[in-house]
């Protein structure tokens, strides 16, 4: 055991003496979460809109009031005719135009039906959809209110509810995604680099010629990354929870067990890469192209897997990040327990075992 801890101590010295490693380990996660949390967000606040009210009656007035006091919209302009819509979009000043048909209140009263047109600038489809979603929600709420006052309408009103994340906050998605990416980066990339570094240096041979068992050499090299990864995950969770209000509704112990499982998955990927790569550069390139890109692009983090072409879907389904992201998201946001996540967990354990077996096999071949 003393040998083992001596080895772990030496590994920590390597990490803490290398500024670049430290920046990747601690700087990147924090910068990324702040970036994602503050800058890269599809939430909408105070979006400029224009109103074309062809009716100008009490009902349209109160709907406009509701919209402008919601906090999501600022009324930038009041238009007078339909031709102005195109112009106001072209100037780029507004993201949405709401059109009330003429005789709105009257039609509502006599026909029990009146039309509102919501036109969004869908150059950026995400923002467009979000704006539409907000607007229609406000109008529906208003409709419910007047339905309560007057006798109920007979038409079917769909009630939209964005469960678990009623405000469609982006951070809810980014925090689980970020934990996944960072763990992949730290565990797989950093371990594969640090292991190939020993190979490149020639010290791996010296270690293998020592009485230290090869298995123990590998374990003591990856233990520091496991410990650091747990600390980093905690930092991301704390920032996400206290700074961005991302809930952690599920069981914290389960969350940490799953995080540890994924760390082991990523570490075995790193070990596997290091058994193949001869130089640090190769290890870096393989980790970046082979692990980081799929983790970011093919895990459901940014693009929904269901919409991908089949070959990419297949990649996404053998990608351990996909499952881990579902697990973290569901535990944190939905408060799901193992009874809902056992499938994903089982798949993750399976992938991990395959990776460990493959690494051991490769390592043996090298020794023969």
């Amino acid at each position: 055991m003393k040998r083992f801890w001596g080895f772990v101590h030496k590994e920590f010295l390597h990490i803490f003496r290398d500024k670049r490693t430290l920046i990747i380990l601690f700087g990147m996660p924090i910068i990324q979460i702040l970036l994602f949390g503050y800058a890269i967000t599809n939430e909408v606040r105070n979006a400029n809109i224009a109103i074309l009210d062809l009716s100008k009656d009490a009902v349209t007035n109160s709907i406009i009031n509701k919209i402008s006091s919601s906090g999501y919209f600022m009324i930038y302009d009041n238009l007078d005719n339909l031709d102005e819509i195109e112009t106001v979009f072209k100037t780029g000043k507004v993201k949405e135009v709401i059109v009330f048909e003429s005789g709105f209140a009257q039609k509502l009263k006599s026909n029990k039906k009146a039309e509102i047109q919501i036109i969004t600038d869908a150059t950026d489809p995400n923002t467009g959809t979000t704006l539409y979603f907000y607007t229609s929600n406000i109008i529906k709420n208003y409709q419910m209110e007047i339905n309560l006052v007057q006798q109920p309408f007979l038409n079917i009103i769909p009630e939209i509810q964005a469960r678990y994340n009623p405000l469609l906050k982006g951070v809810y998605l980014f925090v689980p995604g970020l934990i996944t990416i960072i763990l992949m980066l730290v565990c797989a990339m950093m371990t594969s680099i640090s292991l190939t570094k020993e190979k490149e240096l020639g010290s791996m041979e010296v270690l293998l010629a020592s009485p230290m068992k090869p298995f123990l050499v590998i374990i003591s090299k990856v233990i520091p990354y496991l410990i650091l990864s747990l600390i980093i995950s905690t930092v991301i969770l704390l920032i996400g929870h206290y700074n961005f209000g991302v809930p952690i509704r599920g069981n914290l112990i389960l969350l940490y067990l799953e995080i540890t499982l994924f760390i082991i998955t990523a570490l075995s990927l790193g070990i596997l890469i290091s058994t193949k790569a001869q130089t640090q550069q190769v290890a870096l390139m393989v980790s970046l192209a082979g692990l980081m890109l799929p983790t970011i692009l093919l895990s459901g983090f940014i693009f929904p897997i269901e919409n991908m072409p089949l070959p990419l879907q297949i990649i996404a389904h053998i990608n351990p990040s996909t499952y881990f992201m579902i697990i973290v998201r569901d535990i944190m946001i939905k408060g799901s327990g193992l009874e809902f996540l056992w499938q994903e967990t089982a798949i993750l354990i399976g992938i991990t075992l395959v990776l460990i077996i493959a690494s051991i096999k490769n390592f043996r071949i090298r020794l023969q």
Partner: protein
Amino acid sequence: MEAPNIVIKVENLTKKFGNFIAVNNISFEVYKGEIFGFLGANGAGKSTAMKMLCGLWLPTSGNAKIAGYDIYKETELIKKKIGYMSQKFSLYEDLTVAENIRFYAGIYGLSNQQIEAKTNELLSKLGIEELRNSLIKSLPLGWKQKLAFSVAIIHDPEIVFLDEPTGGVDPITRRQFWDLIYDASNRGVTVFVTTHYMDEAEYCDRISMMVAGKIEALDKPSILKQNYGVSTMDEVFLKLARG
């Protein structure tokens, strides 16, 4: 000739990589305390043979006993009795001299007290007490190599394997390096060294010449020169290598 203690006994050792025979049926013995030179051109099979003797690679066939232990079944015991310095290796650059010593002594299972004593002994012997807390990367290459050798024998092994230890080092430092080797040999450590510097061959007690996986000649440098009727090891090597 007195009956010497055999510490390395190799019989018909062979290593194949696919169809390529890297080491072809070699047999030899190495005696306790001697400096045994393993010579040959690049790719002659020196490193492969040495890796098998250190327990890093398994042979395809043949037998070997290192310090009395079998290289198939008792590699763990062998590893405790040997020291190894690879051709690229010169300690961890980002650790200090003392940290490197502590680490390597640690993986050989030395106690804290032993490590402390060994560190002091080693530093004073090399006359570099003041460099104790310097990072390895701040030292000149020659010092790194000497330190690496001292670290390779920190656990007082019976045999030390040196795989081209003086690559890229200037002749003066090489000479100083060999002083350390002599010193270890005088204390009874058997030194098994591969090299392709022929001047280093002259420093060895006995040498074997490897050509294309086989041992073509094995004897004292003086006898080899005599046998081939030449005056330098260079010429012996050229004669053998050209067939």
